[in-house]
């Protein structure tokens, strides 16, 4: 009964194939597994968006092979309006949960958080392994709904009540499809809660000697803040999903109101509250936006600093801003419900913090901009995507100012303006964060360099393409084009169809450009140039380990940290930087001035 036994059980290097690559306890393997899951999910989500875009631009065009995916959803390859909604729901769910949450937070966070804090692994490797496999099961359950009788649910990724609880009478996929959706998301929540259970103690308890909180890199801070947000948000979404499942299988009435008649049938439920679902969902839903974007803010800052060769104007203010975003994200969720019939005074109460939350966002952007000013930025794929992230974050964020005001939101609500807003600020920006992180950290993760030329081509096609797709959405929204319609038959929408065709062509080209990234990723993984230990001349701990890192990260030792994370622009024996683990005392250039 002595603490010596404490860590004797800590896992030893695995030897069998299953333990090494499948049910691995190593946070680095788990990080790669999360990345692979996100990659598959992103490809599925992108394919679904292609199908939807083709249908929106050329309503009667047959998509070859689509009829094989569904029994009744696409006779002859032309999708029905219901199947359009089913694809849209799956696109949103897959992208928000299994890509935007999984890749920047779970994948990169798992791989790099323990290394950046100077630990040998997460504190609970078994829970970490469970976290991935539960999330994976969630994805399989969601995918399974494609192959059930009438396909996946059509309720949108927000699954509004009462449609989410009425059962098969609500349309295709509203029976088993919704149950599978809710089960999948509940599993996803469990996976992310297990993730937070590891991330938070890793950051607080496993820091190497000398690694004070303020010496943590910005990416580590971002993952820590995100794990705190996830802990609060997913612990609320999971019970909400349980209530939906109970309404389906146990005959309870949490969400379906009395005397509801749907498709000429009187529903047996009584007294449920449709607003209840919206409250529970958006209490999770708005923080989820920040769960997707805060890791990106951290990753982008980390990349930019390395390539600017100087620290940000204020390390502390950036951290506090990310923290403020996290706290405020819980106080703004009602802005998704301005037109829900909620008390107008509540709208006012939610509008105010919504405008306030733009302050920390603006501070972050200003710190980036003024730090970039006058710096000799090294242009590579990672730094280009980091710049792209800022561009998308600003462009998408500006439209947020409009939507934050109830009086304007009443007009723009449920139009393509909103779709353009969240795709830019949450979707594309977060994706650029993922791409930037991949180009930056791939050498450490895979031990090989990615092709820079292909990376730059990928960036420019994605950057221009994303604007061609999502900027016209704002115009469509202002012209009154409602979202979630599979065809536009109204007269006033006819002049907008050429815009839709332009967007579709842009989406097809931009999507195809992602295949360049996929090729680069796979080709570099096997045939890329071997990567040195520190290819970017960076300072944080992940670059002080061998490439790829050994199973215990630092080769049987724990590092000791002597410096703040971003000591660039200094004179040292290795160049213009000094690593956090180097005991060398350096002179800072600005000290001389």
């Amino acid at each position: 009964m002595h603490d010596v036994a404490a860590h004797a059980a800590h896992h030893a290097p695995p030897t069998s194939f299953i333990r090494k690559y499948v049910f691995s306890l190593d946070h680095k393997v788990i990080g790669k597994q999360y990345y692979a899951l996100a990659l598959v999910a992103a490809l599925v989500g992108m394919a679904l968006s292609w199908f939807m875009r083709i249908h929106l631009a050329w309503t009667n065009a047959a998509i070859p092979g689509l009829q094989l995916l569904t029994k009744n959803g696409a006779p002859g390859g032309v999708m029905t309006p219901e199947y359009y909604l089913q694809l849209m729901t799956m696109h949103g769910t897959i992208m928000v949960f299994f890509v935007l949450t999984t890749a920047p937070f779970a994948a990169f966070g798992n791989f790099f958080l323990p290394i950046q804090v100077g630990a040998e692994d997460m504190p609970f490797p078994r829970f970490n392994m469970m976290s991935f496999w539960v999330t994976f099961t969630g994805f399989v359950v969601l995918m399974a709904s494609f192959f059930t009788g009438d396909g996946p649910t059509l309720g949108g990724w927000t699954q509004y009540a009462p449609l989410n609880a009425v059962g098969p009478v609500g349309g295709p996929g509203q029976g088993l499809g919704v149950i599978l959706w809710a089960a999948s998301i509940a599993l996803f929540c469990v996976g992310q809660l297990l993730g937070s259970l590891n991330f938070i103690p890793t950051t607080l308890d496993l820091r190497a000697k000398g690694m004070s909180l303020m010496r943590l890199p910005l990416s580590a801070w971002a993952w820590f803040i995100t794990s705190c947000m996830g802990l609060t948000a997913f612990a609320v979404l999971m019970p909400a999903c349980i209530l939906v499942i109970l309404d389906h299988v146990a005959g309870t009435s949490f969400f379906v109101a009395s005397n509801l008649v749907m498709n000429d049938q009187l529903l047996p439920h009584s007294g449920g509250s449709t607003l209840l679902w919206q409250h529970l969902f958006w209490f999770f839903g708005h923080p989820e936006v920040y769960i997707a974007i805060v890791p990106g803010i951290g990753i982008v800052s980390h990349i930019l600093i390395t390539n600017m060769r100087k620290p940000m104007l204020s390390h502390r203010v950036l951290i506090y801003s990310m923290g403020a975003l996290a706290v405020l994200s819980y106080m703004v969720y009602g802005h998704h419900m301005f037109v829900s019939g909620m008390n107008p005074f509540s709208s006012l109460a939610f509008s105010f913090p919504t405008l306030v939350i733009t302050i920390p966002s603006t501070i972050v952007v200003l710190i980036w901009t003024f730090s970039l000013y006058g710096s000799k930025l090294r242009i590579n794929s990672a730094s280009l995507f980091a710049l792209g992230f800022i561009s998308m974050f600003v462009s998408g964020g500006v439209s947020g100012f409009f939507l934050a005001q109830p009086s304007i939101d009443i007009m723009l609500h449920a139009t393509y303006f909103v779709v353009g807003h969240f795709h830019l600020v949450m979707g594309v920006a977060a994706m650029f964060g993922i791409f930037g992180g991949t180009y930056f950290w791939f050498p450490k993760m895979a031990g090989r360099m990615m092709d820079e030329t292909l990376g730059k081509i990928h960036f420019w096609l994605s950057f221009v393409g994303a604007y061609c797709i999502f900027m016209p959405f704002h115009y469509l929204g202002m012209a009154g084009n409602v979202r979630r319609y599979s065809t536009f038959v109204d007269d006033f929408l006819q002049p907008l169809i050429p815009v839709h065709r332009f967007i579709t062509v842009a989406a097809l080209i931009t999507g195809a450009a992602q295949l360049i990234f996929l090729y680069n990723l796979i080709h570099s993984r096997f045939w890329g140039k071997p990567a040195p230990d520190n290819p970017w001349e960076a300072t944080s701990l992940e670059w002080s380990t061998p490439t790829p890192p050994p199973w215990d990260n630092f080769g049987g030792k724990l590092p000791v940290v002597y410096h703040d994370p971003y000591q660039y622009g200094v004179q040292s024996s290795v160049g213009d930087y000094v690593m956090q683990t180097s005991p060398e005392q350096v002179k800072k250039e600005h000290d001389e001035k």
Partner: protein
Amino acid sequence: MATTIHQPPQIDPQSLLDQGRSGNGGWRNLVPADGDLRVALDHSPPPSSTAIYVVLFAITMMFAAFTSALIVRKGSSLDWQTFTLPSILYFNTLLLLASSVTLEVSRRRVAALMGGLKSQGGSPARWLYITLFLGLLFVGGQYVAWSQLRAEGLYLATNPSSSFFYLLTATHALHVLGGLGGLVYVIRKLSKSALLRSQLVATARYWHFMGILWLYLLLLLWMKL
């Protein structure tokens, strides 16, 4: 001894260590100073003390969500029917509170044992078994409460009030079962003399939290149902 020509300017590493801007940030105690992983691990505080608060926070949020659902659902409907709580719930409450006391006795005995003090009357394991037994009785008692309600014709779907009753009590009971699993783990470790104080402390915190949560739920159900 050879002279190094390009010796980088060296200073006392300790002074650099102390430059962490937020003081000692609570990093790991590194013994010995060369950072050998195995030795350092043996001297690190276990992270379970932080982790248990993470778990308790997640459970709190979950029940907060259920509570707000109950309040909104009750406030927005006309079909809410109140019913009297089965009186066995109050007896179950006493059982759960008693189990917290026995666990605390056990925790103190183990702490004394680890501190090198002689055990004072009875082994800590005996008190852990009593806690386990009381915990099982609590879950059994909850089952009796559900059976009584079913006998009255109150099922999960009968009324929103009964829905919430079953939902809250069953979710709590599941968490208590999780705590019982933790107790079994602690007893097994203790029998092998491999128990860590931190593991026992984490289990005890969880168990006491289950008691507090139950008191809260009982009050909520008593006020709202």
